[in-house]
């Protein structure tokens, strides 16, 4: 199963489990760390084909299929971007994104995938609206849920189609303190977000 675009609760388990092993091996063998600090604002991603202003000082997780950055730790705040082929299976629902989908259809699949995650309790949809990203029609959903350990989380997700690809961007953090605290960084990231051609 592909491990891209997991919500924090899932990443928490996956990353921590793999982190130790990957970190030790990678550091010893190649000198490459699992996390690296973002030192400049402009960021260009050649794998996921986007550019954006990233918050300087945040840490980037160097493994996994998605671009993932955090300030205080991935459980406490994370911005993630994924770009995947439309025919690729999603992680938690058998539904797929398709080229003929309206923005609200994309939001429906995104929310279905999110709600199908084991460990997301008392899910609440706070808003679901159309969004324009880099000139493309897409969606913006805002939601809340409780983790299995009772932590109240809040998140925002965007998504849009780019030919045979779907871009999905998310920000998630605990509702208390962290969500509001890092929201300005996410807003800046979104305002500057642009896709780039190969």
């Amino acid at each position, binding site marked *: 199963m592909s491990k891209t675009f997991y919500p924090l609760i899932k990443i928490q388990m996956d990353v921590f489990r793999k982190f130790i092993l990957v970190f030790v091996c990678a550091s010893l063998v190649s000198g490459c760390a699992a996390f690296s600090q973002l030192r400049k604002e402009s960021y260009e991603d050649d794998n996921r084909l986007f550019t954006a202003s990233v918050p300087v000082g945040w840490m980037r997780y160097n493994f996994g299929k998605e671009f993932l950055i955090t300030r205080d730790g991935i459980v406490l705040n994370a911005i993630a971007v994924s770009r995947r082929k439309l025919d690729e299976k999603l992680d*938690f*629902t*058998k*539904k*797929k994104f*398709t080229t*003929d989908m*309206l*923005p*609200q*259809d994309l939001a*429906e699949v995104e929310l*279905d995938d999110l*709600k*199908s995650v*084991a*460990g997301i*309790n*008392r899910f609440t*949809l706070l*808003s*679901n*609206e*159309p969004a324009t990203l880099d000139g493309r029609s897409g969606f913006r959903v805002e939601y809340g849920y*409780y983790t*299995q350990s*009772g932590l109240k989380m809040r998140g925002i997700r965007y998504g849009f189609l780019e030919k045979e690809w779907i871009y999905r961007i998310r920000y998630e953090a605990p509702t208390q303190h962290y969500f509001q605290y890092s929201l300005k960084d996410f807003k800046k990231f979104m305002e500057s977000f642009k896709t780039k051609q190969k």
Partner: protein
Amino acid sequence: MVYTRLFTKEKIVFVALSSLLLSGCATVKIPNVGESGYSQADDEKRLQKRSEEFVEEIAEGDLLYPDLGLETYLNRLAMRLLPEEVKKENLKITVKVIKDPTLNAFALPNGYIYIHTGMLAAIDNEAQLATLLGHEMTHILHRHAVKQFRSLTNKSAFFAVLQAPLAYAGGDLASLAAQVTFISSVYGFSRELEDEADDTGFAMIRTDGYDPAEAVKLFEHLEQFIKDEELKLPFFFSTHPNVVARKKNYQKLIAKSPPAAATEQRVTGDMAYQPLTKPVVLDNVMWCFQKGMFKTAERHIQNFLQRYPHEAAGYYLKGELFRQRQDFSKKEKKRDKTKDFPEALAAYEQAIALDQNWAPAYQGRALVYQKQGNIPEAKAAFKKYLEINPNVADKAYVENFLSTH
């Protein structure tokens, strides 16, 4: 399954391996609940304690389907099936429903039985439900968890296989065996114990006067579900060979059971079961949509419309099925929606004809028209949708469409 977070995939695979090791081995002999000599040793008490923890985890995890009327009915039925000699043992059977569209049910050693909404939605009547409860109750009454636990800890071959990995992981056999036993409670016991649950469960439904022919249908539902959803997970109650074995077992039991007397009433219990599970079916279809289980959703909708041909909800869900479904044959690259959309529109129309204020049917209709490029009809449907319910969740999309077209 929604509670899979409580078990890792590795553990589940391990259960499969341990069951293979156990197959063909003689089961530990201990008295059943209610038989003379019945008492609980420390190992069984530990399994019960773990069960209590699991019950709490499920209760705290937003997994239970909140329908007191349905729960009362299920618990009364379980009590009715419970043999008299067990009732005096102060063992309480508690039946709960889990919000999960997959077809499964399981029993914990402490007397809790959990049934998925998916299973309740697939079951047709009380006789099939009684078959399920009889099977699960036998796991509890015949103490299958502790039997499996003791079989595991007694196996020298089992220990030999696990010694190295256990030592490496810093674990011990007793705690690992307890975990395996516990997972078995959810994912299925050894073949021998499952056969025993079939036999005793079948006797329970015969005693209560249910039509034995219904017992096999329960496993036909499971078989169909596995086929529809192309299940590949280690999912014991519903793994295909297991279900086929269960089905054959019940067919043999039916063939062996004495023919019904002319005066014997064969009870299926449709009238009691179907009204109580009506909301479960509707909710479960929505969860099937969420998970992309369209074939299972289709079966539930067909059954619902057969039972309730004048319910707008059924036609609305049929419309949603044709609007959302994405499954396609191996020859196609993706589903041809041009065939689905007219079906969806027809179903939405039927829903509206039965209930003119069924707002979601207008929403579905508008979305289909929008995709077909029929803008005037899409606008009219969206306007009606907002008129009935001005505070819909997707209001921003609707207003955006209406203002730009």
